């Protein structure tokens, strides 16, 4: 052991260095947040509670009840019940999401060809019963009004309702033909 090493050992040099670093941090601004009182705004497109898009023209849901979202859902938590309406059109009687089963993967959003379903950035929901987490059609539409109405919804669909032609680059045309063959 050289003299230098001995001095380092006796005077706890490496430990003092570490302590100096922690001491420095004592005077730097805090990086933590006091959560319930001080909230962090989630980024746009954050995957939280579901919402059904409300069509501004009709004032009703945009969903046509095709059932693709339910087929795509890996945790099988979307339940859709439809019936035939007056002019042989499909009517969505019930549209329900069992949020407790959901894994928030947003595959349902991608599966929906009509852009009728979104995941809102709302993440703070808690309750005492299971029923509170069984979201019916009306409650899902309400979520849209509360969290996504206005430009937010359009922004969300633009960024997260993908893929779009631009994602495929220039080869969109060939895509169309080959897709038809398979």
């Amino acid at each position: 052991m050289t003299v230098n090493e001995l001095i380092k050992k006796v005077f706890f040099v490496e430990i003092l260095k570490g302590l100096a670093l922690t001491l420095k941090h004592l005077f730097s601004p805090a990086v933590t947040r006091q959560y319930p009182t001080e909230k962090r705004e989630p980024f746009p497109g954050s995957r939280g509670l579901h919402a059904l898009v409300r069509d501004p023209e009709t004032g009703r849901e945009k969903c046509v009840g095709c059932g693709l979202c339910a087929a795509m859902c890996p945790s099988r938590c979307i339940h859709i019940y439809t019936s035939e309406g007056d002019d042989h059109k499909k009517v969505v009687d019930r549209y329900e999401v069992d949020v407790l089963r959901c894994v928030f993967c947003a595959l349902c959003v991608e599966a929906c060809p009509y852009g009728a379903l979104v995941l809102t950035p709302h993440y703070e929901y808690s309750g005492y019963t299971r029923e509170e987490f069984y979201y019916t059609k009306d409650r899902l539409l309400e979520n849209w009004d509360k969290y996504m109405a206005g430009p937010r919804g359009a922004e969300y669909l633009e960024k997260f309702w993908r893929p779009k032609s631009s994602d495929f680059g220039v080869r969109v045309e060939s895509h169309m033909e080959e897709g038809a063959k398979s």
Partner: protein
Amino acid sequence: MEKFSEGPGNREETSRLSSNGLTLNIGPQHPATHGVLRLVVDLDGETIVKCTPYVGYLHRGVEKLSEHRNYMQILPFTDRLDYVSAMSNNIGYCTAVEKMFGIELPERTEYIRTIIGEMSRIVNHLLWLATHALDIGAMTVFLYCFREREKLLDLFERLCGARLTMSYTRIGGLKNDVDEQWLKDLYEFTDEFPMRIEQYETLIDKNRIWLKRTKGIGVISAEEAINWGLSGPTLRGSGVPYDIRTDMSYGVYDKVKWQVCTGKNGDVYDRYRVRMEEFRQSNSIIRQCIDQIPEGPIMADAPKFTLPAKDKVLSDMEHLIHHFVLVTKGPQTAPEGELYVATEVPKGELGFFFVSDGTGKPYRMRIRSPSFVHVAALPRLCEGELIADLISNIGSIDIVLGECDR
């Protein structure tokens, strides 16, 4: 366990205690086991004579479940294998499926995947360092690591909307593109990060307590490490320069400068050093990728396997039909056969083995997870050592039980 019928304080009992072993059950709920791992250790005094890991407490049947989901739907399950580095698992799974389908990825996608793969490596190693140091008794490192981890998780959230279970990659591409601002913010992070690594090292690298707890503990030779099937930093700590990224089978690792980090002695300290070096390597890979990233499409030209463009779906009948078929049944033109593809995730070699019968779902999917193999090697590492070192050994092999039990 030996049953001691009489109460303590009995002289005869005390002498029997010292000569007979004690069987101790650790877990499944134990803070230092990084999940629900149960260990039964036979002790002689403080020395471990035998250690038996019991796994399966977190078994969710991902492999079986996958047989009933089409290839697209399996993706969210892979998030939940190693939930600390979900992005890497996504890449691993998609790479495997793309190899099977014969999909060529656009260059931009390869670059983005390399970037997020390395980000995920940093996130994983940060959490590893934090918990490993906490196990050994250094609390401050934990808080500092989480500060940096938070920044990367924020970037992940801006990118795909989730902080932990990302599901960001898609078969043949990505969920959505990165934007300029995002790349700029990531670049800023990489500017600052090397300084942060030095801070962690100031705290523990030469700290005499840390050295005592890690040097010469859990030594495994290169040959034995290979025989036990170890991979990733745990293997490289023993001096074996094996890294699947060097195969160039995925990502753009051939277009950037980096090197495989190895240790020498194969002890807990060397495995720690390897991961610290990987921080620097990953940081530099990210920077080079951001410098080189080209413009272009992010989805591959593979219409049989990728969802058609949304704007086409509503205007074109063929696209709509194709969309319906893909979503409800999965890709109908999957090739038949068997295939194994491995990628280098932060913990080691993550492999996916598929048996495909040509339908939209895998006939069988098997996951080769590094954590499972590492848990199997745990008895070899800690038998003959002190019980106090068991915890640093568990930390050094970097396991996540979600991946181990699947």
